[in-house]
């Protein structure tokens, strides 16, 4: 599905990704965690064709669509316009299946996207990405700025899309606990390199991940 090999991406003199290799199999759900500035978004944007790698390769079979960090909606356009624009590269522009997935959006379809609540906006962002009928959905910070219940609901949608439709998902998350819970396999990206990878259970139990991302010390205190 997605095979990234020795990818190097630079912004001018700064190296954002320094030889990253990673793979996502068909129908798989994979998490990518790591601190701010590790290069997670850079990786997603390269996969989506927004950035050009300095060296290395990535192979992608099928279509990819991104749910970007901060949602990046067309704020003064209607919900329906946002969804329909998601289908820019394909022929089928009927937003019906997005409404089936997120019924609340049907009521809101004439509203300007910028006036919606954070959770609703994230639904639009996910719905817009799904309009491209992607084989791989890359999600950048699903939980950012949203209430826990809203995050849970959206996360369950992703799991169902993955399970029922066989859509591969690459999930970038600050909330490592959530990411490791949702995805069976994960990578840890630090300073532009893959520091660790493996099954989520393994990673969740490794002292390094526990200390850096799961707040293990805090847990013990609590």
């Amino acid at each position: 599905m997605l095979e990234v090999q020795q990818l190097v991406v630079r912004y001018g003199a700064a190296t954002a990704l320094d030889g990253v290799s990673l793979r996502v199999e068909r129908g798989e759900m994979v998490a990518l965690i790591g601190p701010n500035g590790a290069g997670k978004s850079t990786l997603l944007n390269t996969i989506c064709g927004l950035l050009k790698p300095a060296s290395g390769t990535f192979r992608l079979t099928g279509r990819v669509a991104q749910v970007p960090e901060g949602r990046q909606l067309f704020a003064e356009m209607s919900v329906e316009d946002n969804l329909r624009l998601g289908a820019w590269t394909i022929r089928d522009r009927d937003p019906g299946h997005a409404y089936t997935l997120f019924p609340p959006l049907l009521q809101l379809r004439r509203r300007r996207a910028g006036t919606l609540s954070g959770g609703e906006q994230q639904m639009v962002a996910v719905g817009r990405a799904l309009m491209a009928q992607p084989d791989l959905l890359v999600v950048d910070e699903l939980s950012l700025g949203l209430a826990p219940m809203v995050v849970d609901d959206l996360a369950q949608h992703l799991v169902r899309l993955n399970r029922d439709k066989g859509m591969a998902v690459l999930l970038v998350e600050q909330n490592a606990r959530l990411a490791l819970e949702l995805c069976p396999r994960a990578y840890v990206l630090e300073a532009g390199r893959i520091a660790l990878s493996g099954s989520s259970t393994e990673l969740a139990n490794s002292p390094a991940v526990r200390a850096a991302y799961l707040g293990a010390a805090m847990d013990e205190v609590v």
Partner: protein
Amino acid sequence: MRLFLQYAASGIATGCAFALVATGFVAIYRVTRVVNFAQGVFAVIAGMLAYTLLGQGVPHVLAELLAVVAAGVVGVLIGLVAIGRRGTSPLASLIITLGLGIGSYAVLILIWGDQPISFDGFKGNLDVGGVTMQLQYVLVVLLTAVAFVALGLFFDHTYLGRGLTACSSNPRAARLVGIDVTRMGLVAFGLGGGLGGLAGVLLTPMQPVSFNSDVGIAISGFAAAIFGGLLRPGTALVGGLVLGVAEALVAGYAQASLQSGVALVIMLGIMIWQAGRRPITADEDSA
């Protein structure tokens, strides 16, 4: 009163032409964030081309239509130079359009010489309640109305129009959904060229154009466009009309040579008043 209405009528007609030029500025600025200083050139080229075509025996309507299409093509070409190269900053693009605009003088003089050119528009007058209006004025107003309605439908109800609006709303997200933002910029330049061209073929029968008329046309159009923060075509229309009527009244009651100056001072006043309330060219989507 009758005199006033007559001045106002002619002002509304020129104001419509300004509004068309202004909408060209807006169409290009919204999508590319470039202020296209070659905007006046489109009008001059279209006016002169229509003159030549008419001279060659091409019938009215067809000649004007061809001239407008040609201005659209020139728009795309200017767009290619101004924004075709990836990573050109809007400011650099602005300077490029300024350079191309001035550079065009050489070409225009080479083809059409340095004397003002005009051609006959719609002949005849219309008498409304004692106010005599040239039919050309009525035509200009009607065609401007048609152009604005068509533009509104295009931007709001077609997929391409929505795509253009998306580029203006959030260029990053537009690229993410697969919209080629540069190509959309070229579409906008083509549209801007066509609108400038339409203004040119409507304006030339009312006031002759010469190679350097683009400055006056562009300044009036820009003033009208900035009225709506360079983003709103509807407000640009109001701006164009205010400016056109103000110019006509000054020319009528005072002196023709004062008209642009006084109109621009009025515009400046409005802008200062507006700036006191909100930033003039603030990005609506940045908040």
